[in-house]
């Protein structure tokens, strides 16, 4: 089981999340980027972190990326993101279940809470600091993640 908790205020953390309206206003294009993070050899534990640019280097420095979700080829318990732009705290969701649409997950979340800033944003220069982790009930599962993001020319989280 995994779940996502929103903290309205996390002292010391200036997390980079944007509103969908701001993402739309700054949109340049959409991009899908592969990241082959795998689960741990120990069942239930998070596997080794894998950078967002470890398997696909098409992130462009200076462009901003609003992560709206990801796709997987195999269901896993949790896929999480973390990085300094989000205070190095994990956030993520269960992946590959028939009842959870992961491709637009953060966008769907935004639609449920339109006044919140719920879409994670990072700069292409920092793609190496965006770390993905996989946890699963089976050992060493490789879900073959494709991160779905909206590429923006300006930072949608700053507005």
């Amino acid at each position, binding site marked *: 089981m995994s779940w996502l908790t929103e903290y309205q205020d996390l002292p010391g953390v200036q997390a980079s999340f944007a509103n969908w309206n701001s993402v739309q206003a700054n949109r340049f294009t959409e991009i899908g980027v592969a990241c082959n993070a795998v689960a741990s050899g120990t069942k239930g534990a998070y596997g080794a972190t894998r950078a967002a640019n470890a398997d696909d280097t098409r992130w462009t420095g200076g462009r901003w990326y609003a992560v709206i979700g990801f796709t997987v080829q195999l269901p896993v318990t949790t896929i999480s993101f973390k990085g300094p732009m989000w205070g190095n705290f994990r956030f993520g969701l269960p992946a590959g279940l028939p009842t959870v649409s992961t491709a637009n997950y953060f966008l769907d979340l935004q639609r449920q809470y339109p006044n919140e800033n719920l879409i994670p944003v990072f700069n292409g220069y920092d793609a190496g600091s965006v770390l993905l982790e996989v946890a699963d009930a*089976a050992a060493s599962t490789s879900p073959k993640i494709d991160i779905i993001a909206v590429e923006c020319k300006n930072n949608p989280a700053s507005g």
Partner: protein
Amino acid sequence: MADYTHTDLQLVGRHVPDEGGGPFENMNQAMAAGHDVVNPVTGMYEIGVLIEGAFVPLITEKASLVFDRIEIAKQAQASQAETASTQAAGSTQANEGEGAQPDTGPLSDQAAPTDSSQG
């Protein structure tokens, strides 16, 4: 009558590891592929049928889960076999004990003639 083209199909299973799932020579190679163990069980286990030599998958399961179950089954079988052999040994000893005189130990065996001569 159903017009089956193939009957008595053979049910088979096979492990299909991930392309990047090893085997790795050392931990550095494993880490580069994202794994935290040198010999991860990756990929899927496919169960299917052979139709004229062609494998047609019916279901797939995460390979590590299948091999975990196999390992658990082996351990359970070994445990049962050990328990059965222990019980068998116990019952054999009990059967032998029913037809023999009560064993009071080597000292009593040696002492018995002495006791009878005295009596």
